[in-house]
């Protein structure tokens, strides 16, 4: 006689999950996934700490750090300015952990299937976009948290507590107009769903909440000139930014993307997924316009991937051996993708060499010096050197003086002759050039900009582990 499975009849778990170990994990989702999250966050931070690399990564982090120091406030800069510089690196992982806890609370309120919650959260934790947010300040991950807190409060049965949902919702509207629009869409979808279920009930508070969001969408745009979309903070590449396995800054695993396509295909035209279908084209268009919105796209992809994964394994397979093999392969593939990403996370900028060389610029160059480098280095230059970068990708409302100058910057770095390079540098008041290892690897060596640095008008004034500071002597 087979031993009875003690989880066999647990409520909220599909009968297709018969494996006792998997069932155990699903029952104890909160415990295990929280442990996994803390473990990954600790590992990622520890690797950078041991290698003596800056613990915060990515241009966006330094954009907010600089903005917080210089008195410009949006939701994230306000949060950043509250903490001492030494413990700032703790904020991203703490935000992630807090997001996860709220997500669990929210899924309890929504009475989602336990296995759905388990795999959704597991896939989300293993997604490079979420992993990257362990080491970087991201306005969109903060927005995600605020919206979840807002809805969690909104779902509360006590009217007095529901009012508090207006606070996170209001703060969330300061991120950017697109995010506010998404929040408004979610509120309206919730309102309409509620009304379609119980047409006679009126939820004045929910209508008020949606009305306030709409007002803030307009008000913030016209009064505070809130950007439509934040970023980008790095050169945009549609496919690598989407699929992490192609070398993007964050993104989604290719396995997750295929699962999401399966999820979309199997749920096509199913009523309960209309909300997700509505948001998908909006978010895809936003992504094509600005890949910074990968965070939102990742959430949707993970959602559909979870649906696809569950549909795939809940159905009765005619080839059971293949079912086991495919399940194993999928998990291996997702874990492999994640590990590959974690492995290269420590190589993301800024590195210790960037920090050292840029700090040297701060201490040894005139305050009005304009620094030429790749636009993605602009935020490190601003924060570590406190100097104006010549070019940057995104500069809306950050109080900085560096314009965008992307075309000019490209022109300078693709110069082949000094006759074309020198006037460009002189006309634009560039006196300092910052070259890091990443630039040396991508710029041609035998001709072009790096070759022209051999001219006597350029002087190498500082060098540290591959990062170089050059001075340009004007006529």
């Amino acid at each position: 006689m087979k031993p009875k499975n003690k989880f066999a009849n647990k409520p909220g778990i599909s009968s297709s999950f018969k494996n006792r170990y998997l069932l155990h994990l699903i029952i104890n989702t909160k415990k295990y996934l929280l442990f996994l999250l803390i473990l990954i966050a600790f590992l990622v931070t520890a690797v950078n700490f041991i290698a003596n690399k800056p613990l915060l990564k990515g241009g966006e982090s330094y954009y907010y750090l600089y903005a917080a120091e210089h008195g410009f406030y949006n939701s994230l800069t306000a949060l950043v300015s509250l903490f001492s510089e030494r413990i700032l690196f703790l904020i991203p992982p703490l935000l992630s952990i807090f997001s996860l806890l709220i997500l669990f609370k929210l899924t309890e309120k929504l009475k989602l299937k336990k296995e759905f919650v388990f795999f959704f959260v597991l896939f989300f934790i293993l997604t490079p976009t979420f992993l990257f947010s362990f080491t970087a300040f991201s306005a969109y991950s903060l927005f995600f948290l605020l919206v979840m807190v807002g809805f969690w409060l909104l779902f509360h049965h006590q009217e007095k507590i529901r009012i508090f949902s207006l606070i996170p919702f209001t703060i969330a509207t300061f991120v950017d107009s697109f995010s506010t629009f998404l929040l408004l869409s979610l509120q309206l979808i919730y309102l309409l769903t509620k009304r379609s279920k119980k047409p006679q009930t009126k939820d004045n508070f929910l209508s008020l909440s949606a009305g306030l969001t709409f007002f803030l969408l307009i008000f913030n745009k016209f009064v505070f000139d809130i950007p439509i979309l934040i970023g980008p903070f790095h050169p945009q590449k549609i496919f690598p930014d989407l699929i992490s396995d192609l070398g993007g800054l964050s993104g989604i695993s290719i396995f997750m993307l295929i699962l999401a396509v399966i999820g979309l295909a199997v749920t096509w035209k199913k009523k309960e997924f209309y909300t997700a279908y509505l948001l998908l084209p909006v978010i895809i268009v936003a992504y094509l316009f600005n890949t910074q919105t990968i965070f939102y796209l990742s959430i949707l992809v993970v959602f559909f991937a979870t649906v696809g994964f569950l549909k795939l394994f809940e159905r009765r397979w005619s080839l059971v051996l293949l079912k086991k093999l495919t399940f194993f392969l999928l998990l291996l593939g997702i874990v492999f993708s994640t590990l590959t990403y974690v492995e290269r996370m420590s190589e993301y900028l800024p590195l210790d060499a960037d920090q050292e060389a840029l700090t040297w610029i701060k201490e040894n160059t005139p305050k009005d010096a304009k620094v030429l480098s790749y636009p993605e280095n602009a935020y490190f230059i601003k924060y570590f050197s406190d100097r104006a970068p010549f070019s940057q990708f995104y500069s809306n409302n950050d109080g900085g003086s560096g314009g965008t100058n992307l075309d000019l910057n490209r022109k300078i770095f693709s110069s082949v002759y000094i006759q074309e390079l020198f006037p460009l540098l002189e006309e634009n008041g560039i006196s300092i050039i910052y070259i890091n290892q990443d630039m040396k690897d991508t710029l041609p060596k035998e001709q072009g900009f790096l070759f022209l640095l051999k001219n006597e008008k350029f002087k190498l004034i500082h060098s540290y582990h591959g990062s170089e500071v050059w001075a340009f002597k004007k006529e």
Partner: protein
Amino acid sequence: MKKETKLLLVLFILIAVIRISLAFSVPNFTYESYFHLRQVEQITQTGLPVYTDSLSYGGREHLFLPFFHYFMAFFNLFLPLTVAAKIIPNLLIASIVIIVYLIAKKITNYETASLLSALIAGFLPILFFTNSFTVESLFLPVTFISIYAFINLKETPLTPFKTIRESIIKRKFLFIYIGSFVILTLTSPLTFLLLIGFGIYMLLSLLESKKINKAELEIITFSTFFFLWVQLLFFKNSLLQEGLAFIWQNVPTRTISSYFPHISILQALVLVSIIPFVAGIFVAYHSLFELKNQKAFLLISFVISTTLLAWFRLIRFKQSLAFFGIVLAILFASFYLETDNYFKKTKLFRWRKYLLPVTIILLLVSMVIPAVDVSFQQDTPTKEEVAAFRWIGENALPNSAVFARLEEGHLITYYSNRKNMMDDQFGQINDVNKRFNDLNSLFTTRFQTQALSLAEEYDLQYFVLTPSAKEQYNLSKKFNYAVRKCFEPVYANETQIFLLKCEVKELE
């Protein structure tokens, strides 16, 4: 033994004998084969392929799937490599005859038509590169084995089995599919052709409201994830470094058109032969728009996927034509079956007895001559050229680097055991375009200073000028800049080898 089986065996043996005879009548292998020969030799000696190569490009990392090389290394244990490399790939390609017969029979259930398909597959001119020792010789037959297993998957029973033996026997096509797919995935990234074909097959079935077999869906899901996982394991670094450009294998811009040319209908007609081509197009049209036969859908899906991928320059011209040609050979069985039925039902009935002999004669006439011609026209180094590269191996300074044509790069590493400037393994080479331009400059420049500074940059000591190089670069006798004082002739036959004696220095 059934008559058809005997005929099939005779056909297989005949084609194998013709292929092997042709292979031995041409003295060497095609240029690209030498890369694979070197890998197999290395596996036989050390058990591992040359992933860290100190000779290619003066030192680089290789990334490739190694199954074919291990497979061949097994035969190298009891056969000399040059013999095994001529026999085994030709036997493998000849085995396509049997696989094509089985698939065609499954689709038409007509032995005569299936034998004709096998005949076409056996004499496809595009497959008559008898001296080509490449991954495709294993990839092509195994691909069609997996297609055959896939077609038969429907017959896999769902009921539980009483014994393991019964389970294995009744699920043999599942095991054959899994086995062949695993081999394919570890042999060539070209396996994605199969997956794209499956995708188009599902799409076509959906459009025609045909129900897709549950087992087929499951096997496609498994195959997709397995393929992706293996490719990520092997090509992780290349993907991260090159991103989507990885698909184009980092081929230099100026040579990309010779690797991924746009399909010329005329060339395609010659290489896959006119009769199967026309018949295939007819069957594809007829099956898709009139019969809506699901069995043919799968094969047509492969035709569509191959054409699309070749059109978008995602697979090489020769590879796509080979795949395309075999599928057309299979589809010919349906064409013959329909023609035969037409003869039966119409006034042409009395002419029916001539249909088979006329078809055989037409096929043989239109295919055998081009096939043998392709074999004799293969781009291989001459005996004399090989002797020159062997001479370098025996006489040149150790650790020296040798300059020769791009195509001859593998001859330098294989026969001379010296560093080359460039070969056709472009993956993960950073400055591939610059290198390619420099290589061409070294053949075409008239300036000694330019040649010397390039020689210094790539640390080249020996310069090889083969008759093929003279022809390609239109050089009459020697390099335009090769004066005796700086370029000492150390080997002077039809192929000339020069030792570099000078260097460029700044004046004091």
